[in-house]
């Protein structure tokens, strides 16, 4: 990185700390610390909701995913506008009027203490496990970009975020999120512009759209109904609906945001803002990935995008096999590039017969490139402990090699911003759940405001330190364990949503029904996940449905006190 890039990056870090600490000044009780005194404007809350959801991996991983797989991932987000209406009508006013600190606190008022404790515990388990990975995953990529040691990146990212989160609580988090989200929007447009402007001079925008289409990368809607197919319109609408509803409705990192708004109206407006901006934002991120794919049709990409893994292969006994596959890759790449150029020329001339013929050649050449890349991945895989997934390195690799001085610093700041906003949101949410649902509820129900404020800050420091430690050790776990941690954590979403739906929709139900439903839902999700081959998105629908069915059944089987009295 050049000195200008470093200045931009350091300026970003300094601005983040300044905003965080500046907003930490007001408020000396837990209402200020965890709810920002319910006085934050809706647009800041809305940007904060989006910033918490958009992690660094969303930013770089989604671009890489579009590079490999096209636009299909966008289908997950399509139900969001409909989900937001449900949130505006039910979840948001219920939480807001109940004047709760955590979403799970509401469940004690509706059901009982054990339901609150179970759901809060499940949330803390899932988020506690994943928050370390939220720091670790981008740190690996950023270490390569910055030329830093992995642990240095983790420490800088963790410590900076923890500093303002622990000091200022949710107010500092929301205002830094707001700045970070604005930076992400700038980065998003800058990224798209940079990729399009990097296309060769003779490849027009229309040519790029055409090549994206003929290689099946503009596949925003997939109408197939195979349940094993990860991203389809059906899995997006069904699974995505429950995923979004559980994330925005029951995850404390989101709920904590929209209960900080000044009124129910402002709370709703912040959600509406997310509903309107989310899909266009994801479209732009994914489109950047597709244009990146087109760019690499004419510019030779690295045979494998993760340079750290290439170094490991170079030092292993698979070195010769890797070199051989890479030479083969270069050959097939040149063939595809030449065919692609001829195809575009024929298209410009309007020669449809030649275009059709060259299109078949181009697709065959593309298959050869993919087959050779698969061989390279097999070679990488042969090295023990290697990571064969380089999807997170596609966009950073482009940034480092093709982006002009100054903008590299901006793009790295954007990735840092995306990571820090998610980490801060999750640490603040974990802190509130531990402090309000357990410490204040069970250990110290009567104490001064100052005591709770200090306890809250201690909880934030605990979760921040825990997350940073997990991130430091995650590197030694191996890829499969990191993925397992993320996967197991995501299994808790559905059952938690089921409990909330039972609370809102089934008036008959009580705490025992909810508890039984939650356990059954959790077992059903874990069983389905490990025994059946279906898209993970459907798991988000299975959890709440099982909780509702078991909860309703239990409410009819176990007699209610009023019914017992009648009989």
């Amino acid at each position, binding site marked *: 990185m050049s000195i200008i890039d470093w200045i931009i990056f350091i300026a970003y870090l300094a601005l983040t700390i300044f905003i965080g600490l500046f907003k930490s000044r007001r408020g000396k009780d837990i209402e200020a610390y965890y709810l920002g005194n319910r006085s934050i404007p809706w647009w800041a809350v809305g940007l904060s909701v989006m910033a918490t959801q958009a992690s660094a991996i969303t930013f770089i991983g989604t671009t890489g995913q579009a590079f490999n797989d*096209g*636009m299909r991932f*966008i289908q997950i987000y*399509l*139900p*969001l*506008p*409909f989900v*937001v*209406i449900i949130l*505006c*009508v039910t979840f948001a006013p219920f939480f807001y009027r109940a004047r709760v600190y955590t979403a799970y606190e509401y469940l004690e008022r509706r059901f009982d203490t054990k339901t609150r404790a179970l759901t809060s515990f499940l949330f803390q388990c899932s988020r506690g496990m994943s928050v370390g990975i939220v720091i670790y995953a981008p740190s690996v990529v950023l270490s390569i970009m910055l030329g830093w040691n992995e642990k240095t990146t983790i420490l800088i990212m963790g410590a900076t975020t923890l500093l303002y989160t622990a000091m200022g609580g949710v107010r500092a988090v929301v205002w830094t999120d707001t700045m970070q989200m604005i930076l992400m929007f700038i980065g998003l447009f800058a990224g798209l512009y940079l990729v399009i402007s990097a296309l060769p001079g003779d490849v027009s925008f229309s040519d790029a*759209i055409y090549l*994206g*289409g003929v290689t*099946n*990368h*503009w*596949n*925003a*809607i997939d109408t197939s109904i195979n349940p094993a197919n990860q991203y389809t*319109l059906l899995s997006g609408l069904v699974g995505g609906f429950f995923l979004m509803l559980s994330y925005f409705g029951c995850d404390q990192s989101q709920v904590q945001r929209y209960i900080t708004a000044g*009124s*129910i*109206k402002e709370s*709703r407006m912040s959600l*509406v803002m997310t*509903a*309107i901006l989310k*899909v266009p934002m994801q*479209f732009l991120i994914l489109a950047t990935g597709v244009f990146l794919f087109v760019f690499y049709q004419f510019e030779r990409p690295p045979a494998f995008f993760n340079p750290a893994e290439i170094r490991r292969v170079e030092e292993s006994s698979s070195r010769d096999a890797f070199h051989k596959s890479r030479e083969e890759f270069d050959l097939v790449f040149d063939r595809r590039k030449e065919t692609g150029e001829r195809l575009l020329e024929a298209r410009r001339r309007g020669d449809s017969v030649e275009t059709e013929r060259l299109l078949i050649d181009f697709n065959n050449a593309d298959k050869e490139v993919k087959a050779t890349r698969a061989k390279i991945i097999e070679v990488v895989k042969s090295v023990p402990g290697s990571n064969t997934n380089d999807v997170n390195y596609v966009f950073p690799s482009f940034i480092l090699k093709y982006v002009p001085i100054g903008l590299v610093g901006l793009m790295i700041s954007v990735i840092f911003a995306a990571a820090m906003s998610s980490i801060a949101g999750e640490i603040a949410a974990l802190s509130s759940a531990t402090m309000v649902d357990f410490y204040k509820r069970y250990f110290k129900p009567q104490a001064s405001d100052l005591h709770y404020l200090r306890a809250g800050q201690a909880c934030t420091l605990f979760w921040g330190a825990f997350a940073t430690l997990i991130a430091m050790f995650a590197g030694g776990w191996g890829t499969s364990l990191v993925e397992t941690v993320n996967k197991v954590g995501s299994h808790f979403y559905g059952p938690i949503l089921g409990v909330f739906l039972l609370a809102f929709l089934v008036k008959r139900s009580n705490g025992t029904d909810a508890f039984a439903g939650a356990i059954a839902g959790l077992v059903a999700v874990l069983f389905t996940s490990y025994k059946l081959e279906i898209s993970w998105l459907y798991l988000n629908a299975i959890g709440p449905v099982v909780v509702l069915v078991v909860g309703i059944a239990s409410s009819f089987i176990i007699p209610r006190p009023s019914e017992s009295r009648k009989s």
Partner: protein
Amino acid sequence: MDEDPDKSTDERIGFWGGWKGLYIFIIVYGLVQVILLYLFTLRYN
């Protein structure tokens, strides 16, 4: 005394300017997104 602070706003602004209007707008917006993406896929993919 009306407990819902939003209700008076809804009544003052009227149906299309109030929450119901906004919800209908969001539903239409969501459906239009799906349709546009489907047409986009058909046209360019």
